[in-house]
């Protein structure tokens, strides 16, 4: 299916991703198919030093440290994306169009994605569900260990929610702002008492 085709209720995205991701809005439901690459903290640091080992144009980077056994993905759910806040800019500059993870990312990433790409949220902990829709294709930086290596994965309709869009929209921030307001109302505190 070509990128951007609307199949069923959710828009199906296929890598390499193009300008179609720019139309998405925070809160939209999509599925993602095609090649994606896992990367956690150590992989980001290595890619900054040695360069990105895969074609980054239109790529999707998945924040995940899977369990791999005998060349097979056993389970592969998303890890906390915010750990990579300060490590992400160079990927977007290199043409990466989608970041996939859980928990959302910082304001610097929201700004960096503006006009370039999106952050897609996969349900945290759903590692068995995710792996059922993934096939392992290869690996870079295997010496970093199972959790930190860059695994090349063929994804088949991963169910995702657009968390951050290319227009500065950030569902996580909106929820956080509401939560802050609720907190201060309930406990009668000043807005500046929580960082």
């Amino acid at each position, binding site marked *: 299916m070509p990128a951007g085709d609307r199949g069923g209720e959710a828009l199906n995205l296929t890598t390499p991703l193009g300008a179609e991701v720019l139309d998405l809005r925070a*809160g939209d*439901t999509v599925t993602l198919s095609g090649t994606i690459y896992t990367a956690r903290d150590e992989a980001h640091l290595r890619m900054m030093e040695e360069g990105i080992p895969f074609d980054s144009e239109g790529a999707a980077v998945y924040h*995940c440290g899977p369990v791999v056994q005998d060349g097979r993905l056993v389970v592969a*759910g998303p890890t906390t994306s915010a750990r990579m806040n300060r490590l992400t800019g160079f990927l977007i500059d290199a043409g990466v169009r989608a970041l996939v993870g859980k928990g959302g990312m910082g304001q610097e990433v929201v700004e960096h994605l503006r006009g370039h790409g999106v952050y897609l*949220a996969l349900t945290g902990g759903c590692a*068995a569900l995710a792996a059922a829709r993934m096939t392992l294709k290869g690996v870079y930086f295997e010496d970093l260990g199972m959790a930190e290596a860059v695994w090349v994965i063929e994804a088949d309709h991963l169910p995702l929610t657009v*968390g951050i869009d290319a227009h500065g929209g950030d569902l996580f921030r909106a929820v956080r702002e509401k939560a802050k307001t*609720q907190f201060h109302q309930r406990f009668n505190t000043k807005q500046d008492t929580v960082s």
Partner: protein
Amino acid sequence: MMVNPADPTLSSALADATERALLEAEIRLPPDVLAALRRAAAAERDEIARRELGNILENIAFAEERRVPICQDTGVPVVYLTLPPDIGLSPALFEGVREGVQRATAAIPLRPNVVDPLTRENTGDNTGAGMPAVHVTPGERLTVTVLPKGAGSENVSRIGMLLPSQAKEIPKFVAETMLLAGGKPCPPVILGVGIGGTFDMAAALAKEALLLPVDVMGDFEAELCDAVNALGIGPMGLGGDTTALSVKVKRADCHTASLPVAVNVQCWACRRATVEVKR
């Protein structure tokens, strides 16, 4: 009859039980946690949140059916032993647990998560200096309970040394913990709250609270849970009614000048299993 502390069969039986408990905990959620999740999914009003909870329930079914871990962060094992009077505290017990963790890591398999805290060098088998943590209490039977703890939720846990005059502010401290955590710990969470004791005891109590059944709450626990859910953080921080499935409290008496309060955050995958050691 007193069992020989160096008894290799005791150590080996404990290794078997630890491995079995880890397998059970990693692939199948306890019935009380599952019941709390199902109840939340039925009550949730937010569309995105309902979808997230649907994915979670589907994932749980997948993991059990395929006998694979529920989450790729298979955690670090936290182990609780109960020792009957005829079994002395001995290195054999700790060796047995250690061997069980090593075997489970290779067999299930588990992701090797244990590293040196400074060099970050991975030991490869989920054991290491001081790991796994083993807590021992007296009991009627020899049992091993495992609580594999993931980092996403552990990392946003908090301890506060409140003033004795701040007892009424405990709900605020608990809600503030989740306000700061947002979607990072994989909500809907279960919060283990430890109140009293000392600095270290409060944290231990908070973690032990996660071993309690989550599908029932006392009035104070329900009050804390309501305060957290009013925030609207929702599953994965995407908004909704269900931020906490349950809040469980354990307490101990403390110094008249102290009020330690610890919140151990646990993701929805509150994995735990208990196995009686055959000997």
